[in-house]
């Protein structure tokens, strides 16, 4: 029973849990319930990944209708891998948010927050698992709406503007995707991604399809905050409540990156997108500019959350760079970085949230002397920060290693050099914060005795992520296996049969 529906459960569980959480009403009930559900979903995601690695593709026909007539959920190594990261992060952030949210959001809205979180999680799972282009749009909107809610929940008034900007940009992005899907549908008559891939006929209606491709790419790029379209991200991440930022930064954009991978590799085909359209060059250029421009911007910000937000944009550049290298290794590097970056940024934002919890500010000056007052938090921040820089024995190094390897494989020496050059900027922006934390004294005006370590419920998930940072930085077998089989699968999946009963009709 469970086995049969495994592919649907990670979406359905949070989807159903959201209204129940709303009905539960009491904030502690809904918190416990949401966490439990998220943990279950995480467990299922784990099993799914196992299953996908063992059996290849799992197809689930919702409503019992075979694709392309019905909606199909399609699990392979790639999305199961990302789903695992998302669900794990969701669970950890929920654990973390109990205390953090109490501080940052007024009590009457806690239940709404947990509901929104579950909705967002459900939306992200849906985006990952669905095999239907339009269904993807629907889930995209579920997660986006929940995201706007969560961003605007912060008490800072600037969060409202951030959320509004996010809403406008996000909706434009979604509408672009809608246009793209419409154009594709028009020239193929189908919405199922695999079926689309089989039926796309460049010779017949190339211009329509190419336009569709362009619109989907731009739309997804807005959602994943690719460089010139990233304007919404820094303010949204900065002013959102800490737990929200931790969740979004580590999942939402990653899922969008996955969507881009999915469209490029599964729907349009590498040969077309990169071969004849030359999209790889555009993506590569944008990714590199993103890495440098945004890393630089990160070095001159004074608000630590903004620093990390810009860093996120830069890191997304790395993922896109991996994709744009057009090789299995590059794609694998991108996928690994999706997973790894979730670990790093999750931990970093949680640590920043912990600082906010105690100090009430996340300006860089607020970090002064915290190395002594909040040793565990700052140690977590340090390790995760080193991971962002790409220091060996952390996950950051693993991603960077594969990325450079991929670049060198393609004889893109300059790209490889630029990737490494980009990490130098990370040294600067992480270094500034660490220096404040460890080598500057707290200003006397602030009462230093009150600042102590945060509650264990915040520390535990933070350190879980930090340890994961190290664990997956040393034992790379799981990530590498999953990512490489996913990458290989994506590269040669064009001949896959459609659904379980593809031959039925």
């Amino acid at each position: 029973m469970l086995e049969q529906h495994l592919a649907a459960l990670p979406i359905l569980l949070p989807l159903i849990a959201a209204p129940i959480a709303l009905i539960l009403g009491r904030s502690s009930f809904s918190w416990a319930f949401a966490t439990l559900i998220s943990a279950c979903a995480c467990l299922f995601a784990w099993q799914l990944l196992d299953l996908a690695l063992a059996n290849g593709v799992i197809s689930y026909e919702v409503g019992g209708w075979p694709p392309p007539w019905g909606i199909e959920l399609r699990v392979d190594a790639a999305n199961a891998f990302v789903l695992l990261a998302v669900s794990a992060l969701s669970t950890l952030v929920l654990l973390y948010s109990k205390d953090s949210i109490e501080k940052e959001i007024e009590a009457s809205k806690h239940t709404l927050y947990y509901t929104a979180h579950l909705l967002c999680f459900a939306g992200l799972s849906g985006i990952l698992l669905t095999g239907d282009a339009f269904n993807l749009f629907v889930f995209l909107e579920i997660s986006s709406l929940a995201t706007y809610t969560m961003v605007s929940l912060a008490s800072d008034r600037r969060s409202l503007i951030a959320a509004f900007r996010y809403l406008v940009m996000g909706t434009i992005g979604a509408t672009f995707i809608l246009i793209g899907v419409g154009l594709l549908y028009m020239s193929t008559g189908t919405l199922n991604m695999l079926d689309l891939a089989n039926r796309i006929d460049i010779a017949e209606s190339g211009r329509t399809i190419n336009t569709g491709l362009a619109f989907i790419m731009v739309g997804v790029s807005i959602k994943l905050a690719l460089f010139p379209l990233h304007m919404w991200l820094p303010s949204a991440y900065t002013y959102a409540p800490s737990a929200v930022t931790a969740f979004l930064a580590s999942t939402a954009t990653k899922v969008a990156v996955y969507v881009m991978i999915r469209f490029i590799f599964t729907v349009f085909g590498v040969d077309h997108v990169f071969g004849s359209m030359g999209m790889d060059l555009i993506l590569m250029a944008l990714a590199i500019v993103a890495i440098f421009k945004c890393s630089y911007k990160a070095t001159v910000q004074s608000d630590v959350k903004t620093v990390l937000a810009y860093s996120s944009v830069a890191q997304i550049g790395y993922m896109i760079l991996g994709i744009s290298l057009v090789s299995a290794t590059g794609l694998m590097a991108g996928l690994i970085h999706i997973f790894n970056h979730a670990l790093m940024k999750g931990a970093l934002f949680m640590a920043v949230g912990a600082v906010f919890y105690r100090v009430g500010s996340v300006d860089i000056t607020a970090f002064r002397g915290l190395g002594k007052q909040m040793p565990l938090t700052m140690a977590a921040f340090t390790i995760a920060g080193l991971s962002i820089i790409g220091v060996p024995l952390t996950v950051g190094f693993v991603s960077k290693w594969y990325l450079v390897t991929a670049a060198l494989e393609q004889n893109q020496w300059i790209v490889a050099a630029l990737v490494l050059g980009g990490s130098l900027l990370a040294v600067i922006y992480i270094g500034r914060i660490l220096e404040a934390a460890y080598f500057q004294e707290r200003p006397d005006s602030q009462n230093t005795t009150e600042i102590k370590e945060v509650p264990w419920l915040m520390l535990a998930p933070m350190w879980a992520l930090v340890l994961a940072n190290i664990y997956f930085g040393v034992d790379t077998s799981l990530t590498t296996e999953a990512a490489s089989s996913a990458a290989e699968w994506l590269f040669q999946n064009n001949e896959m049969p459609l659904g379980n009963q593809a031959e039925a009709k």
Partner: protein
Amino acid sequence: MNLWQGIEPSQLISLSILLPFVGALLVIATGKSPNLREAVTLITAIVLFTVVLAIYDYISQGGEIGLELIELFPGLSISFEVEPLGVLFALVASFLWIVTSVYAIGYMRGHNELNQTRFFCCFALAISSVMAICFSGNLLTLFIFYEVLTLSTYPLVTHAGNDAAKKGGRIYLGILLSTSIAFLLFAVMATYSLTGTLDFRAGGIFDDSHNKIVLSVLLVLFCYGIGKAAIMPFHRWLPAAMVAPTPVSALLHAVAVVKAGVFSILKVMIYIFGLDELKDLATTDIMLYIGVATILLSSCIAMTKDNLKARLAYSTVSQLSYIVVGALLASSIASAGAALHIATHAVGKITLFFCAGAIMVASHKKNISEMVGLGRQMPITMAAFAIGAISIIGLPPMAGTWSKWYLTIGALEADKLIVVAALMISSLLNIAYLLPIPVKAFFNTTTGEAEPWSWSETREAPLPMLIALSVTSLCCLVLFFYPQPLIDLVNMIPGVSTQGEG
């Protein structure tokens, strides 16, 4: 030595790495009681030395030790492999750790430093990573622990916590991390993508099938990527790191950090490029001359520095380039000289730093101009200083003689007369900036009149410090008369020999 007989040889490696690590943890655990903490440090240091000796024993009998830990990437793991050069470095480092620990105990107490626990802990961590570097079996392992070393010494550099320390620390970390990430990592990965392996192999892993131009570029990247070797213009971190407490400077500049740098360079030249391949590369000469220029320029800068530690720092920069030059000469003798120089310079320079620290603790003097007549107050210290200085200059009967000798022979053999000349000039410069210090201390007096010396006026540094600097200065002497074990060890390095080609 039979202490470790019962243990599987491969476990000796992990033991040598884990010991200081465990020591560091113990230091944290015993942080509340200084005595216990220092006892732990000392005992760990001594035990470690015995382990390294055991390894040496095993190696000198022709044994081979290897250890593969975890597979980081498919086909690439963190692995260790003992070879003579590494043993040499490990011996030096582990021995000097004992000495430095003794010294540091005296220094820290004498100076009433804060955060001593952090200090000893990071110290032990640094040694741990140095051990890992010594025995690393491939470039990846080397790179990883190279980075760990940088990070674990950063808190040491900024130990004082004031603005100057922070600034120094920033430069230190900035240059070392950025060069290693931007150049070294890139070079490592390029090597991997070219050859498909990163293992250290006798004779190198590159061969004629690889594009010479690419290799030339790689050579430059390696040389600059290993920023710890302080080749100009990436030498700035070294003087900047002088803000650290003296035991740290001693460790950083004589043993752990800088030697890890030149050791890495030697290792890359010998085991990755291979000396034969190295000869054919266009950039070898360029780098060689940059090394030569570094030697001369930094010697000149050293002369202008009045601050004793700064002078010593620039001296270190120039001495490091000896080793780089030795490696880049691509001759077996020069390489042997370079390898030997690791050891001889280590003992010499650490003596000098010990002395500088002792002077600071005892008389609070930092500048050379203030040290006039100091020899009367601190005769033992200044005598040791003189010994160290002579060793650095390369005059008999001090250890430095041997390494300089082989370096010069190697340069001659390679027909690089400019290098020979540079070595000579540099020695003269060494004399010019080092010898005046003991001379002033002993023979000049502030009043101009030589007053008779008496014990009542001596205000030597605390006893542990004195012991430490005496031991190292003695080593300088001993290694001159009894260098054979080291030379034997060096001769065991494939392709390197003190006997010249053939």
